[in-house]
């Protein structure tokens, strides 16, 4: 394992890429600590200390931004606008025929969709930035804090505009950093940035658990949480790697004097084909009602009361059930839009491939659909259960909200980690070295 890493650094090409990625990450974390001009840094810090790092409604977004959101730094919005924009466009491709046509067009169409995503990111960043600055000014960002309404001392329109513009350009900057990593570094930039943000929150919240713990001066809880986390990582890696291999036989063809095909391969159908996307979809969707209440300012109306009792707290049965159901639904939904059995069957027919025992064409598509459907059931249930773990842990151990190995964060960390390691490995193998996964 370690020699594998050493080898990765000895390869000049790969070393350059790794160092470039690390450099960008340093810049990213640095930007996440510079406060936006106009924010009273001492007041913010005091409020964060009082709130105990538990942002309530903003908890999830705060986690995605690596704690930068509540500190109101220039990278406060993090990659959330980009993720939201991607989700919106992904959903719209199903609805709007023009986008679907673009997607089918291949590379140039995808490039155009990416461009739309970037524009949408900018718009969303302006929206979310304005919302964040407004809540900070009115003092609702930290409700319980004494100096909560003095976070932004100067509330003139000009100063507000400067703050919003700074945050927006910070978000755009993050987008560019992510693209730079994708382009010249290793792995997918956006997901690596998200990985970094989430991982950056781990030491702090682990230490928080140690501080709050009672067994053995807190070390008891500390090690317990680490053990549970490790076990969960193992489980997640196990399921992420699990796949059903549908055998495919290719007919032998003679073209000229050479013979092609005649090989037998397989179509890998992953148990969790959709990855973390359902979890992200579900939590973003469930976040919307609470956001509506927050911005309507009308917290006494009947519907607002109902939402804030049932849908904002992560430990309410209603919220849990909805969350679970949404995750299962989105797992199926995403598999349905990302893997098209008919297309695969058609392609196989074109190149003379068939699944042994099943006729080419429609029966093959039906068979693939059947297998995919059955394999997605355990996959989606597993996703839902994993995402519920932190809440259950809170209920069982009476633990704090900032349980660091929450389902979403672990899924993202493991998913991104596996993907990146695989990429490094394939780069290593191009040079005939054995990689570090054995």
């Amino acid at each position, binding site marked *: 394992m370690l020699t594998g890493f050493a080898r990765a650094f000895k390869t000049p090409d790969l070393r350059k890429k790794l160092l470039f990625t690390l450099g960008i990450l340093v810049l990213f974390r640095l*930007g996440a600590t*510079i*406060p*936006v*001009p*106009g924010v009273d840094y001492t007041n913010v810090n005091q409020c964060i200390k009082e709130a105990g790092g538990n942002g309530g409604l903003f908890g999830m977004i705060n986690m995605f931004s690596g704690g930068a959101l509540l500190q109101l730094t*220039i990278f406060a919005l993090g990659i959330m606008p980009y*993720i939201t924009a*991607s*989700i919106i*466009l*992904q959903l719209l491709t199903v609805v709007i025929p023009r986008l679907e046509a673009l997607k089918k067009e291949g590379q140039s169409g*995808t*490039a155009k*969709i*990416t*461009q739309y*995503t*970037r*524009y949408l990111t*900018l718009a969303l960043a302006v929206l979310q930035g304005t919302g964040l600055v407004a809540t900070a000014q009115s003092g609702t960002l930290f409700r319980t804090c004494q100096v909560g309404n003095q976070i932004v001392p100067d509330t003139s329109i*000009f*100063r507000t*505009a*400067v703050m919003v*513009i*700074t945050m*927006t*350009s910070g978000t*755009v*900057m993050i*987008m*560019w950093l*992510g*693209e730079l990593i*994708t*382009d010249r570094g290793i792995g*997918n*930039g*956006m*997901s690596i940035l998200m990985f970094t943000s989430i991982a950056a929150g781990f030491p702090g919240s682990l230490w928080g658990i140690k501080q709050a713990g009672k067994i053995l001066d807190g070390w008891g809880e500390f090690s317990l949480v680490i053990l549970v986390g490790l076990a969960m990582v193992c489980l997640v890696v196990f399921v*992420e790697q699990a796949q059903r291999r549908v055998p495919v036989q290719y007919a032998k063809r003679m073209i000229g004097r050479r013979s092609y095909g005649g090989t037998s391969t397989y179509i890998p159908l992953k148990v969790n084909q959709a*990855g*973390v*996307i359902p979890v*992200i979809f579900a939590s973003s969707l469930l976040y919307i009602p609470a956001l509506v209440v927050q911005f309507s300012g009308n917290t006494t109306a009947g519907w607002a009361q109902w939402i804030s009792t049932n849908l904002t707290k992560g430990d309410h049965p209603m919220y849990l059930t909805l969350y679970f159901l949404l995750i299962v639904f989105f797992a199926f939904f995403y598999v349905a839009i*990302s893997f098209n059995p008919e297309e695969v069957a058609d392609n196989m027919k074109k190149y003379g491939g068939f699944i042994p025992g099943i006729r080419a064409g429609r029966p093959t598509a039906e068979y693939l659909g059947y297998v995919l459907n059955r394999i997605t059931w355990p996959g989606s249930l597993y996703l839902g259960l994993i995402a519920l773990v932190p809440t259950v842990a809170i209920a069982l151990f009476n633990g704090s909200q900032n349980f660091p190995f929450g389902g979403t964060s672990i899924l*993202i960390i493991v*998913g*991104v980690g*596996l*993907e990146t390691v695989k*990429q490094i490995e*394939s780069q290593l193998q191009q040079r005939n070295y054995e990689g570090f996964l054995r």
Partner: protein
Amino acid sequence: MVIGFSIALIVFSLLLMLLVLMHKGKGGGLSDMFGGGMQSSVGGSSVAERNLDRITVIVGLLWAVAVVGLALVIKFQK
């Protein structure tokens, strides 16, 4: 002083957004982000793109300086 820095910050921010949006987007969105499994084979970037990179880096640095400068100016004015 504060006004000057603020205006500089606004100008640099707008420039930065414009420059970044002028880049060709890399990365294929959501499915690529979380386990799409495809290796993107992108060739080297063009000369225009490289010049754009250079300008973006310079503007980014100026933007960072403006941010820190404005924060300091506001702090010492109090």
